[in-house]
């Protein structure tokens, strides 16, 4: 059960709150049965009963597109990511494959990111780790945090993990970053004074003007959006949502968004990795 504050109660009386997420099952390529809704992880059991992928809040055609790799426009970018995986770049004469082998061997990576890096003493997103390898292992240029080439790479890494459950660590050395992210999630920013929770916890299932609000989960990232016909990274989406509260946004790759990503990822612990997903 969601927390029934006065605010929620007031509107429960008048409108059908929490319109159902569509009842449907996502089977990828008629093969992999995806977990798109499941019990909320213990850390948020007080706020939400069930966690639900954004897939359930999209229309029938959009959902169908994601179920088949031939129809999923995001898969073109996965192929580009694969090319880049195998391409030798930088002063060391190496590609990603030189150290890691086949991209499929990375299947256990995406589900646990953002992840604490012992040597660096910081929580790292997948983008940060990709750039660390490029700079320090390959002697190659960093990729732009929200650039197309970075999204191609994260799409490849997500695609080989599809069906595996998101499982980011929130305790031990990650806990301070996680707490910071949680604070940001509930901060009511901007002139509209809305937090992530205002829209994605208190109102998922409801319409905000023409938009059907989901839980704002990130298990499907990067997402291919029909609206801008490209892959969208997690931090670009965060930036858009913060901007929509009439706030000064944080920068993609900033410590704030890294912390927020860890926290939001942890709200999806248990959902299958879906990236690249299809959204509108």
């Amino acid at each position, binding site marked *: 059960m969601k927390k029934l504050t006065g*605010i929620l109660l*007031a509107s429960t*009386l008048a409108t059908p709150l929490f*319109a159902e997420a569509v009842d449907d099952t996502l089977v990828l390529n008629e093969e992999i049965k995806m977990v798109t809704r499941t019990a909320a992880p213990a850390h948020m059991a007080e706020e939400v009963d069930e966690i639900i992928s954004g897939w359930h809040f999209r229309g029938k055609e959009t959902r169908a597109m994601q179920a088949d790799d031939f129809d999923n426009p995001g898969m073109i970018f996965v192929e580009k990511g694969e090319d880049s995986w195998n391409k030798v770049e930088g002063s060391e004469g190496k590609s990603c494959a030189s150290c890691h082998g086949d991209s499929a061997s990375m299947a256990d990576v995406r589900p646990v990111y953002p992840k604490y890096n012992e040597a660096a003493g910081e929580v790292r997103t997948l983008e940060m780790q990709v750039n660390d390898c490029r700079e320090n292992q390959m002697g190659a240029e960093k990729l732009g945090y929200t650039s197309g080439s970075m999204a191609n790479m994260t799409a490849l890494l997500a695609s080989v993990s599809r069906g595996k459950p998101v499982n980011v660590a929130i305790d031990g050395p990650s806990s301070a970053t996680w707490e910071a992210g949680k604070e940001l999630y509930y901060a009511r920013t901007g*002139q509209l*004074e809305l937090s992530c929770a205002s829209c994605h916890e*208190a109102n998922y299932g409801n319409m*905000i*003007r023409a938009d059907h609000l989901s839980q704002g989960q990130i298990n499907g990232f990067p997402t291919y959006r029909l609206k801008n016909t490209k892959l969208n990274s997690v931090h670009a989406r965060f930036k858009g949502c913060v901007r929509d509260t009439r706030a*000064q946004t944080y920068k993609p790759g900033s410590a704030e968004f890294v912390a927020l990503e860890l926290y939001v990822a942890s709200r999806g612990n248990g959902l299958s990795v879906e990236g690249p997903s299809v959204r509108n």
Partner: protein
Amino acid sequence: MKRNLLTIMVLAASTLGVNAADIEPSKVVYADGAVEASLSGAAGDASSGQKIVGSKKLGNCVACHQIDALADIPFQGEIGPPLDGAADRWSVAELRGIVSNAKMMFDESLMPSFYKTEGFIRPGKAYTGKAADDTFAPLLSAQQIEDVVAYLATLKE
């Protein structure tokens, strides 16, 4: 020349929503969430209020509220209660308080405060994602609030 400059300045001031007769956002007096006095000192215009309520660029109230009387406006939201019959439930002073700063009436309300200029976390310059600058103004001007209140006062069932 001088006169032109003056007109421009007055125009600029009015687009920012500051008119001499207006009660400044920080000086509005709330009593149990209600505001007795007109914020602009003038009466509201209900037909202008209706436009503000429905317009995406102005109040955009329908982003969160449904209003049967505005059925021709597509995509009305479900975040707040429908506003049909609002005038049966609330007095004009209460409606003025709710639109100006709903958090005075409803603790922690999700409804944005339309006549407030202080106390924000990371206020931005409209929807640019950049920091607010000296053009920062309340979401609606004093007169726009009065117009919206005049419109809400027509919503009887």
